[in-house]
Structures are given as C-alpha cells and as structure tokens.
C-alpha cells in the first residue's frame, strides 16, 4: 500500500474515485425522501476523502531548505 500512495498516478485514481463517490447520491440513489441517508453517505465519503488526502501527503518527498 505504501508504494501505491507514492505513485503520482495513484492520486488521480483516488481523486476520480472520490469524485464519483461524492456525486453518486445525485446519480444513483433515488428517493427525494431520503435526505438522512444521503447526509450520512456524503459525510462518510467525505471523511474517506480526508483520510486519503492524509495518506497521499505522507508519500510526498520533502525538499530540504
């Protein structure tokens, strides 16, 4: 997994995955009377994106001053 987070291309896979995930309630989840479910889904997906952001940042090489 550490190698995955090091690859620059992996970022874009994760980006697209997260974009698809947070947009999914407006594409694939029917029912206007289910805002509670959508609310939970969106925040959980968003939380996952935050975790991914942190994991990817750990793979960035820091340049000395």
């Amino acid at each position, binding site marked *: 997994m550490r190698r995955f987070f090091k690859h620059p291309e992996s970022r*874009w896979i994760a980006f697209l995955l997260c974009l698809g995930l947070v*947009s999914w309630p*407006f594409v694939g989840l029917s029912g*206007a009377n289910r*805002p509670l479910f959508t609310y939970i889904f969106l925040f959980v997906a*968003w939380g996952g994106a935050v975790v991914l952001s942190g994991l*990817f940042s750990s793979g960035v090489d820091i340049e000395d001053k």
Partner: protein
Amino acid sequence: MISMTFILGVLLAYIALLYLCAFITEKWARSGTNLANNPLVYSLSLAVYCTSWTYYGSIEMAAKFGFLFMAVYIGATLSLIGAAPLLHRLVRMKRRYHITNIADLISVRYGRSELLGAMATMGAVVGLIPYIALQLKSILATSTLIAVTSNTQADQLLSKSLGPIFVGTLIAGTVLLGIRRLDPTERHPGLIITVAVENVVKLVAFLAAGGVIVFLLGGGLGATLHSAGEKFGTQIQYLGRTTTPELLKWLTYILLSGSAVLFLPRQFHVTVVENSDERHLKTASWLFPSYLVLINLFVLPVAVTGLLAQVPVSRADTYLLELPLKSGHPYLAVLIFLGGFSAAAGMVIVETMALSTMITHHLMMPLINRFRVLAFAKRHMLQMRWVAAGFVIVAGYHYTFTVGNSYALVSMGMISFAAVLQFAPATVGGLFWRKGNKAGAALGLTAGFAAWAYMLFIPAFIKGGHVESALLERGPFGLQLLRPESFLGLSGLDPLTHAAFWTLFFNVGFYMLGSLVFRTSAAEQLDADNIVGAQQGAALTASHSKELTIDRATKEQIVYRTFEQFLPPAKARELTDRAMALAGISSAPQLSALELVRLQDQAELVLAGSIGMAAAHVALRNAEFITSPEQKALSHAYGEMLAEIRLSPEEIRKKIDFFAERKEIFARQAADLQARLNQRDEENLIKTVELLNMNQQLKESLAALREAQERLLETSKFTALGEMAGGVAHEINTPLCAIQLIAEQLQTLLSDEKLDREMVAKLLGKIVELTGRIAAIIKGLRMFSRNAGMDPLQKESVAGILRSTLSFCEHKFKSEGIEVAVKYPDESIALDCRPTQISQVVLNLLNNARDAIMTLPERWIRVDVESGVDHVEVSVTDSGPGIDAMLRAKIFQPFFTTKPVGLGTGLGLSVSKGIIESHQGSLNLDTACGNTRFIIRLPRCGK
C-alpha cells in the same frame, strides 16, 4: 434583548484579545519562539477559506439547494488530494523566487512580465472586491440583527456609525497585522496566530449554535432530516436524485472550489507565502479538510429547522442568529455573532493584505517606473501598500452600499470563485508546460476574464436591477446567439456551469493557441526552463569566469542606488550586502561577466521581496546594471561555453529534459527500494525475534542435554564400577581369607599353647598389612564413585594412579586368564590432574581391552609409561588385532559401541577423550601398532 453598546463592547474586547495574541506571538517570535511555526496553527490558518459566506451563506444555500453547499468544501478536499504536489512546488518556488502572490507567480513564470502581473491583479481586484463587500455586509447585517438600538444618544450614534467603525477597524487590523513591514515575503506570525484563533472561534460558535438549534429547538438530527425529506423533498433540489444540469452544477461547484482553495489570493498567501516548513503541508492535508467536514455538519439540519419553524427562506442566511434569539438564547447569539465576525474579519484582512501587495507590485510600480513624475513614490512603498489596503476595504464598503442586497452581492461568492478559476490555466500550464509563453498567458487571461465578465459579472448586475436587462434577454445588438447565459446556443445549463465551461474553453484555448503561434523570447524561455524543469542553473559557471575585468565596488554601488530608490538607506545597505553575499562575491575586488549576471539575479530576487519580481527586473534594467561591453563579454563567455560543449541550446534543453526524467525515474526507484528495504527490515526483525526464541529453546535444550550427559557420565562410571565389582570383591576377599587363615592359625597355636611372642608379632603384622590393603581398595572405590568434575587439579604420581586403578581389576583379569603387565614409572613422574578422572579413563581402557580379548586364545594387556621432557604418555595395549579402519573414525563418538546391546553405553571412549582434553592432553588410537593400542598423552607436572 442586547444593546448595541454591549455588542460593540464585546466586539472591541474580542478584537483587543486578538491583537494581544498577535502582539505576544510577534514578541516571542523575535526572541526565537515562533508559535505560528507549527503545523497545527498553519493548518488552522488555512480555514480562512471559510468566510461569512460559509458561516451564514451556506445555510441559505442549503435551504434553497439542499446538499449543493457541500460541493464548495468537498471540492477543496478533493483538490488537496489531486494537487498536493502542486502546493509543494509552489512553496519551493516561493523560497527560490521570493514570490508573494499569485500575480507574482504568473509574472515570474512568463519572463517577469509586468503586463501579466497587472492583468492578474486587475482580475483579482474586480473579482474579489464584491466578495469583500459580502463580508462587510454580513458584519453590518448581523450586528443590527442581534442588537436593539435604543433611543439613547449613544446607541443612535453607534448605529449610524457602524459601517465606518467596522471599515476603520478592518483597515487598522490589516495594517497592524499584515502590512507593518515592507518585505511581504517575511512571514507574519501575529497575523497567522490571529487567523488561527478566529478560525477556532468560528468553528466552536458554529458547532454550539448548530447543536442547540438542531437538538434543542429541532427534534434532533435524524428527525430533522427525516422531516426534510417528507416536507421539502420535492421542493428543494439536491435532496435526492437530480437532473443532468443539476449534476453538472454540482460538478462545477467542485471544480470552482477546487481551484479557489489553490488560487484565491488569501489562500495563496496563507498556504504558500506564510509556509515556514514544507512538512506542515502534510499535516494540513488532513487537518484542514477535517475542519471543513466539522463546520458543515449542522448546515443542512439548521436550514431545515429554520424552514420547519416557518421562518421565510428569504431570511435563511440569518437562521443561525434568528433561531437562538427567538428561542431566548441571547448570549449564544452573541457567541454566534463573534464567530461570524471572525469569519468575515479573517477573510477581509488576509485578502486585503494580499490584494494590496498585488496592487502595489503590479499596478502602481509599473506606473512609477514609467512616469518620472511619480518617482518620489518609490520611497513610500509601505505607505502605498497601506493606501491600497484602504482602497480595497473602502471599495468593498462602497460596493455594499451601491449594490446592496441584490443578486449581484449574494451570488458573488461563486462568481468570485469563477474569476479565480481564470488563473488556473496560466498557472498550472506555466508550471508543467514548457511551451506555455507570455503571449499565450496574456491571451488566455484576457479571454477568460472577458468571458467571465460577460457571462457572470455583468449578468449579476442585470439581475440585481442595476443594468438594463436587454443584453441578458436579447443579446448584444439583438444577436440572440451571443446571449450571456446561452452563448452560441448552449442553453439548459445553470449560468455558473455555462460560464465555467465557456471561460475555461476560451482561456485554455487561447493560452495554448497563443503559446504555439507566438515566439518565446530567450529570457522567457530561460525562466520557463528553470521553473518547469526546476533546474538550479548554476553548473556552467566554473571554468568560464576567469577573466576578472569588472569592478565590484562600482556594481555594488549601482545595486545600492537602485535599492535606495525604494527603501530607506539602512535597509538598502542591508539588502545590498545580502545580495552580494548570496551571489558569493562579497570580498572579490574584480568580477567576471558571469559573476556579474549572478549578482544581477540575486539583486533582483532580494528587491522582489519588496516591490515584486517584475518591478525589480525593470528597476535593475533601468539602472543599466550590465553595460554594453559587459554584455559583449557575457555573450563571448556563453559562446565559448556552447562551443565547448558542442551542443545547440535546443539540444541542451533536450538533454536536461532527458536527465531530469532519468533523475525522476531514479528517485522513484530509490523510493521503491527504500520501501522494500523497510519491508525487509520488518521481516528481518520478525525473523530475529523468532531466532531469539529458538536460541532460547536451544539453550534450554543444551542445558537439558548437559544434564543428561552428566547423568550418563555418572552412569558410565558406575557401569565401569559394575564391570569390576567382581574383581574388587575378589581383591577384598583374598586378604580377608588370608586374615581368616591367620586368625585360625593363631587360635590353633593358642589352644596348643605353642604360641610364642615372635610368631604372634609376625602374624599380627601380616594381618595389619592385609587390612591396610583392604582399606586402600575401599578408599579407591570411594574416590572413584564420587563426582570429581569440580575437584581442583592436584599433583599425583603416575605410578600411584596406575596402582590404584589396577587394584580394582588386576586380580579379576588374572583370574580370567588375562596376563596383565604394568611398567610402573618412577615415583617422581607426576601429573597436575584430577586423579579420580585419570583413573576412570585408565579403567575404561582396561575394561575395553578386557572385553575385546576375552574370546581370543592369546589374552594379555600391557600398560606402559613413557616420559618426555614436558609430557607423559600412558599406553594401554591389548592382544587384539587392532580396530577396523571403517570404525576408527566413530569410536570416539558418543553412544557408539561394538558391544552387544545391553553390555555397553557407548560413552566410555567419548567421555574419556573429554576428560583427557580437559587436562590439555589427548587420547588417540595408535593405528601404526599391530595390536590395539590407546595412548594417553598428558602434560607433566609443572610443565
């Protein structure tokens, strides 16, 4: 209710507290303890992204468009996933080029262009002053909402003066916290700590308000959202499945917020310019988006609670304040007001500071450089920045008054984000595409901002009722195809989505077209190569800078005079010295042409911190830093370099690309290898632990084995004793019989009265001799049976040891028809040994010899002793034919025996060998002898 005086009093106290934090932080930073220089404060300061538009406006958006507000923050999070390497690169560029804002970045990349810097600044000012106005409006509106203006003179006066008071406070705050020094590349720990504290206050206030509204006033989170579905599910968009245009709008919001979090001037300032350590970006990558998640938790539930309470949706942006006020929580309302003020003030101060730097560097400086009449202003750069800051805030305030509560103001948040999006092609393209050039960037920015103004900015004014609506309805000159919100017939889209598409289309299209059609100048190409290839560009100076013909003092004077145009003399001298030191020529009396170029570069960089890169470039060019002859010498030096390396500039560029690519590949491979090494280390660690466990088990097994071996040793010894028991009994029995016979003889003599004194004495003497012999045998047995392993070494004659040993078995052997011949040595030949152990070895050899020859017709055993200078050899030879060659290698192995099962332990020889070796001796089979012969070789006593 709360009076205006009280509200303003609380606000002033809060502001005083913030200034105190800033003052203490600045003071500590000067003494070496910088509170702002840590990842937590840095990450919190990034939350300046959340303005009063987040604080109040998100609730309005949620009340009207359901979950759509989340896209503004989710977009920022996704941007951090995709664009984190870009942020790292910007931080490195800031360190190298002294970049202070987004216009500086664009200017530096495209040949230090004044034009592009000015265009970017104009776009930012036009796009963001309405956004600042939005913040001012929120402060004014909320303060009048929560405070009741009484009829007292003070309240009346305060109520009328609110606007100027807030404007003055914000201008003072901007100047005190952000524009006290001239060099904007210097970090502002006081400002950053203040912004971080404000961001904590607004988060706490929002969560407190959201908790009270949702859980106390509403029916809880689940019930509220359930009601939302039931009552508003079909009325409010984005609560469920959406149409395609609505989905596109969602994606557009994500795109715009993703670019805003990178390129908004205030975000650029806190993220890039105020970054003191690149590693802080790693913490910010999860902490800042976590903040965004938290501050949005209650937005939709609060909006739904307000709607359920039947507060009109037109007042949705005030739900956060109105609901607590109506339910009797005035002090919570004060906290909410402080949170809202924090959100607005933080944004206004940082944005104004960034815009004021852009205005002075990219609008004022070019004018001052161009018109001599304005030259006096060069010495008043700091004051000019204060004026620019004042202008920005006052313009925002004026905008609030002029445009008021119309569409043009409330929709300005996303319209400003769309303006900022126009920086993206020139910036991203400039950092990653070497062919991007000034002409392309100028065309792209022009087209992008023009399309933005035409499709979003002007329509906002039309919808607000400030401009005739004909343009929106019929298009310019009645050309329907050119209508701003359905350009070229593209209709059915939300205006923002429509504008985002067209602005990007024109911006990117013209940027690429212009870059490919128009030529790139050599100087610009050099900047492009440096920035895109991230080359350091210092490698070619070594061998070609030998001709020292330029006077250093003259050039230093030019640098100083140039600096002095903009800075006080002391500061100009300090920066001149810094430039000389950075160029590495502080003490050289003469300079070469290439050293001169290096000095020019460093002087530009140092001055850029105060007036911007483009203006610094122009200032040094105007100072004629490099004269015409020097230019020729420089051309000559470069010509020599190119001739020597025999490559055209294009070929050099290709090679640099090639090696840069190789470097990147190697870096990746190194990272992979490092990861594998780490993995291998982990595996090795596990194996080491396993080995340690096994080692421990092995030690335990070894200890058990030693114990067993000792037991076997004892067993072997007692086996030998058992084997000689018969002989020993006979040895004792013989003297006993003799004693019995003597005793009977004495009885007979006594009864016959023939006993004479001489005979009695003779017989008694015989008895004493015989009992002495028995005592000696028993003593030997006792010694033999005890464990002698730990006995100290003692001097013992070889003859004594042999006698003692043979006393156990000699008689038995003779009774079995074995002839025993012992050649006793002189008593002086002695050993340092444990006699019992040596005796045990000899006895083992004798027993083995006896077993081996029992079936032979000729049976004899011979014990010989030979003494050398430093050793003694005891050999035991029997009449056997020797040991089979196949068995010789095995006879000393433990448990090896040729005797029938049950008759031998197989330990005798191996134990004997061990005993002799523990005496520094050796036990060997004499293979040269025709019989079976074992030789014990031991060091002599004292040797």
